[in-house]
């Protein structure tokens, strides 16, 4: 993670983890970010309450994402799997934190994922949310294509609504784009009483003098932000916490894109 520490400081960097397996590179990136921003690193593992309830029901069936095969879910199976993944995540986080030399903590929380994500984002300065690894509905490129896209011109995307968190998010997004030699896509999301034009001016003012290639795009209504992002698949999405946490949660269900929530 190559964000200069003198420009961005944070007290806490949280990495939000779910039961999709441990992404070692994401953890490593989070640890570096914590080191560079002199923040404490916190790992939060979400146990989806709906999943846990479902696991106990006799009617539960599952359709496999990769094969479309239908099968019955055995009682306790999901619980055991989540527990094992939480343990693995904690171990992995401890390892990368030690390597980066940052203080760290880890906890497992249970509840509705949307609420858990909002809570995590509310108490951290920066929350990194892992990609869902296998979006159910999205267009999934082949591994080779994805690699190429990762190295290619896929932009860093940031949602901008002129709020204070949005300004900080824009600052972080700019530095990420510069560090990675990527273009920046600024998605304007005007709030009540604001026009896209005034937002554009603010964004352009903030970007003036920055050595980054950027595009400023008008976002559709919030409800369509997800579809919009699906069509402009970025390498990373940076969003201010409010009011986009919901959108991020939905996005996580659909896209293989990591997200940074900035408070």
């Amino acid at each position: 993670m190559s964000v200069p520490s003198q420009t961005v400081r944070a007290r806490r960097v949280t990495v939000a983890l779910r039961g999709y397996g441990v992404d070692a590179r994401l953890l490593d990136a989070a640890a570096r970010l914590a080191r560079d921003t002199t923040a404490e690193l916190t790992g939060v593992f979400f146990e989806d309450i709906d999943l846990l309830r479902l696991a106990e029901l006799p009617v539960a069936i599952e359709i496999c994402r990769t094969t479309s095969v239908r099968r019955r879910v055995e009682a306790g199976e999901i619980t055991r799997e989540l527990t094992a993944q939480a343990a693995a995540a904690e171990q992995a986080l401890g390892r990368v934190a030690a390597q980066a030399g940052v203080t760290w903590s880890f906890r497992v929380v249970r509840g509705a994922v949307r609420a858990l994500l909002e809570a995590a984002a509310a108490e951290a300065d920066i929350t990194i949310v892992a990609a869902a690894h296998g979006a159910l509905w999205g267009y999934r490129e082949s591994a080779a294509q994805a690699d190429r896209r990762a190295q290619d011109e896929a932009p860093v995307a940031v949602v901008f609504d002129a709020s204070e968190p949005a300004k900080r998010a824009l600052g972080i997004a700019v530095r990420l784009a510069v560090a990675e030699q990527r273009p920046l896509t600024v998605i304007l999301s005007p709030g009540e009483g604001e026009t896209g034009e005034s937002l554009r001016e603010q964004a352009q003012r903030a970007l003036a003098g920055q050595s980054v290639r950027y595009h400023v795009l008008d976002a559709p209504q919030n409800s369509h932000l997800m579809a919009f992002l699906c069509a402009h698949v970025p390498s990373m999405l940076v969003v201010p916490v409010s009011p986009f946490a919901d959108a991020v949660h939905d996005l996580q269900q659909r896209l293989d894109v990591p997200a940074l929530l900035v408070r």
Partner: protein
Amino acid sequence: MTAAKPLAPESLFHPCDPADFEFETTDELDDLVRIVGQDRAVEAVRFGAAMPVDGYNLFVLGPPGTGRHHFVSDFLAQQAAERPAAPDWCYVNNFAEPHKPRALELPAGRGTKLREDVASLIGEVQTAIPSAFETEDYHHRRQSYERGFQEEQERIFQEAQRHAEERGIRIIQTPTGVTFAPIRSGEVVTPEEFEKLSDDEKKRLEQEVEKIGAEFQALMQGTPKRVRRLREQLRELDRDVTVFAVGGLIDDLAESYKDLPEVVEYLKEMQGDLIENGDLFRASRDRPENLTQLIMGAGARSQEQSDPMRRYGVNLLVSNADSSGAPVVVEDHPAYVHLIGRIEHQAHLGTLVTDFQLIKPGALHRANHGYLVLDARKVLTEPFAWSALKETLRSGHIRIESIGQAYSLVSTVSLEPEPIPVQLKVVLIGERMLYYLLEALDPEFSELFKVSADFDDRMPRSAENQTLLAQLLGTVARREGLNPLHCSAVARVIEESARYAGDAERLSAELRRAIDIAREAHSFACQRGEAVIMAEDVQVAIDARDRRQSRVRDRMQEEILRGTLLIDTEGAKEGQINGLAVSRVGQHTFGHPTRITARLTVGSGKVIDIEREVELGGPLHSKGVLILSGFLASHYVTDRPLSFSATLVFEQSYSGVEGDSASSAELYALLSALARLPIKQSLAVTGSVNQYGEVQAIGGVNEKIEGFFDICHARGLTGEQGVIIPMANVKHLMLRRNVVDAVADGKFHVYPVQTIDQGMELLSGMTAGERDLHGEFPEGTVNHRITRRLIELADNRRAFASDHGAEERQ
């Protein structure tokens, strides 16, 4: 029979008179532009080089140092200069079968041009494709397709979600897929709540979950089809953009090669591949490890992604852009891979990889449409090189494959480059023995090398050849910055050349030796501060060379003089004679005397050659000894059987004896023993003998005479000493100056003989004797004594047999 007379001094050495030359020094002579004294070989090379038919490759045979290599190279260079330049050869990617690279033949110089053109094209493509894909239009079209797909997916998902919610079911993602949960009041039903439901409600929910699951499964199964459609749309878009970006570039290039259909075909294939693999040019390069790579896990890029030239570049195997004629390639190290080329490998991520760019040419490629000159011995001793050369000539194609592949030692997948048709003339240069062995043992050899150019090791000592040799020396002197040779020095070199040839009427064709003497004489002339090499410098060089090489000879002579090796040079002994042998140690040949003795007793007429009995005698030596028996049985007594047993031995000989040049000496010793007639030890003898008692020519006559002379000279010449040689060898005499001087002073003698009788007279001092009218030898002659002794031995044997038989009967 006439008595043998000693040769006059002028018969012992045939000088070269400097006055016969029309120059003072070699500076006055033109450079030599032809080879000396090898007309037969020159004609053969000329014939072989001109024959346009397969199989008429050349084998140039003959001794080293005759100028074979220089002549062949120079001659072929002249021939090649008159022929058109050979074509260029390239290997390019075979896009359909990458492991079988394709060979392209282009006129000389066009291969280099093609390589540059393609490199330039790829450079342009590297710019054109990314530019084309950066346009707003492209992005809009791509986004339009992707958006359409996503919207369709969203619509289907939303519809499914809504439909499920209406039926009290929520769709939830799990780590491995999707599942369906019944809900109440917006929350997933807990297990406790579910238990409280009526059985009918449970059954209904179960059926609903099953039904929705089945519907959802059907929707999911439709997704891959929609994804395929999207991918096809995107691929088609990318293809269209790539065609637009590069199509014109390749068309322009193909137009400039329209006279070469194979190249045009290749360029079209390249166009197709570029369109299919435009992504290679869209990946950015040299980006440092970054966040996205960390998060997304970008893999290592392939070599082709790093450098598209590896896929599309032209491997210019052979370039004749700067050639003005056909190639003449002299391969000094004809190892297998140096002949047929090789496929190199590079280490990449811990494994060895290769591609058509790593194909390297061999000498056969470089010499194609021209001449390839090889040293036969090296080709035969390099593993697999000879087989590969024959296979290439037989098939008419150069097939590059590793030894492991060729002999099925390894089965890993490697390249199989398209074989390149070959049309060339191979010239092997080697010793005669190699040629004869190949002729005898390799049935393919005579099919593939139909022309032999046999370089002679001697040439007539004609005025023309002497002048040519002088020209050669002058040419070498100029080329190497040596002092010019005075005509007297040239004369001395010629005399030495004749001596080396072992024939006063011939010159050695081993010109390298004459040149080396001139080089060494130059050094001595320089030491004297002279600007011209004189005869005395040549003589010093010859003497110094002799001195350097004569350690073994000197040690042997030393031991003779010290009495360790027993050689008498005075007095007379019965059954003992000085034979003469020649030894060769490295480059040095020298003669030396060796004592031969004969002892006899009553027996069955068998001459026992002790050398043969202990297997120290070679077959020619044994043959010579057996001839003696034939001579004895027919020359003296024909009405009685030979009734003696004789033993012949080379005294103090500890190594093999070969050749029949001592057979006359052995006969003299045997006759001496038979006649009980001492023979002079002051004479040494050489010459072979036939069954009629005629003395025949032998080799190394000069060295043999000098070998005995040196011993006598060291002990003090008495005027009685000398050597008996075959008359046929007189023309070979080129003796050292001190020998000739001793003969001129009457202190040493060289006797040529034609018959054994002449030799016996010289050795015994007694008349040999001829048969009278009654067929008897006169009393008081050698032959009479021998005859009488043979009869006596026969009678003794008969008496012994009679007594012994009577005793046995009693």
